[in-house]
């Protein structure tokens, strides 16, 4: 019996199925909990399922690459998911006119704010140079932020983690913060969520409303571009 159990564990530990199934099941459970408990931002399913899965990896001594062998099948869908943002965006752009000027100003201000406030605050608290270089592009979507961090001499995988933490934080505090600032226009709310918190902000914006989601996708895409153009110049000023 014990050897049967050991055999089963050896099979499961080697197979991508275990962590693929656990990732989807954990997320599904966390999402149900989130809806049942009135969508409290601290119970956002990305946050709770990451905490649970990290605990499972640590408890079972599973290295991250082993986990990723299973989870990569979900991760892969991120690419087509980002391409898919064009569909709601196309619909929204036909509803509104004269967006280019307002959105460019908001994008530029937001993108500079994201980099400058993050780097200055972390430097004030004595973060290492490597950490600062990995932190600077944190509001851009993960693949862009990793590329920028690498070019600057930061750590791409640390940048990816900081991007994710930013996304969770933005998705958690964003809607209520914006409401408190009397930002009620779904287009403005969504755009801010996309600029500040990339894809996770966009996923959160889609929960609020279709228009917010579409503008959030636009904000994320534009900030990916703005961050990659701005960060190298800003870092020369901030960290001479």
């Amino acid at each position, binding site marked *: 019996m014990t050897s049967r159990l050991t055999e089963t564990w050896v099979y499961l530990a080697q197979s991508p199925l275990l962590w693929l199934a656990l*990732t989807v099941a954990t*997320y599904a459970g966390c999402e149900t909990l989130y809806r049942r408990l009135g969508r409290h931002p601290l119970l956002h*399913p*990305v946050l709770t399922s*990451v905490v649970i899965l*990290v605990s499972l*990896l*640590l408890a079972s001594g599973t290295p*991250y690459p082993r986990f*990723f062998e299973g*989870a990569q099948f979900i*991760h892969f869908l991120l690419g*087509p998911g*980002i*391409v898919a*943002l064009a*569909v*709601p965006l*196309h619909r929204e752009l036909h509803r509104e006119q*004269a*967006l280019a000027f*307002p959105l460019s*100003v*908001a994008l530029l*201000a*937001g993108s500079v704010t994201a980099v400058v*406030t*993050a780097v200055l*605050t*972390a430097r004030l608290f004595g*973060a290492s140079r490597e*950490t600062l270089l990995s*932190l600077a592009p*944190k*509001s851009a979507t993960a693949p*862009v932020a990793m*590329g920028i961090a690498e070019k600057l001499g930061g750590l791409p*995988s*640390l940048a990816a*983690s900081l991007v*994710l*933490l*930013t996304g*969770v*934080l933005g998705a958690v505090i964003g809607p209520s*913060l*914006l409401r408190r*600032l009397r*930002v009620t*226009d779904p287009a*403005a*709310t969504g*755009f*801010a969520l996309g600029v*500040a918190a990339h*894809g996770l902000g966009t*996923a*959160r914006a*889609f929960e609020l409303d279709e228009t917010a989601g579409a503008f959030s996708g636009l904000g994320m895409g534009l900030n*990916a571009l703005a961050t990659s153009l701005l960060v190298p110049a800003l870092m020369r000023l901030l960290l001479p």
Partner: protein
Amino acid sequence: MLRGLAVLLVFQLVGEVLTRLLSLPVPGPVVGMVLLLLALELRLPQRDGLRAASGGLLAVLSLLFVPAGVGVVQHLPRLAAEWPALGAALLVSTAATLAVTGWIAARLLRRPAGREGA
């Protein structure tokens, strides 16, 4: 649905190829999104299947970030060592970015008088 998924994957593929060939500073999927937007303006891809495929993916967009999110497990020692700096920086910066972007966009997006929905 299947055709829609094929359209999304082909646009991502073209985006990835262009990013590399032209060494663009943005990732392939973002280039793919822009190209699909242009194609939709020109009424190229078949609409219904695309709507089904994109709707399906966007409904579970949050789930798609979980595998990368769990990657934080590799950086727990550094996060533990530098958490006051990183926590403060992420909180201040994310709140400031949301506030600045949202406030400016909300002020400037107010429709000019006379237009519908102003």
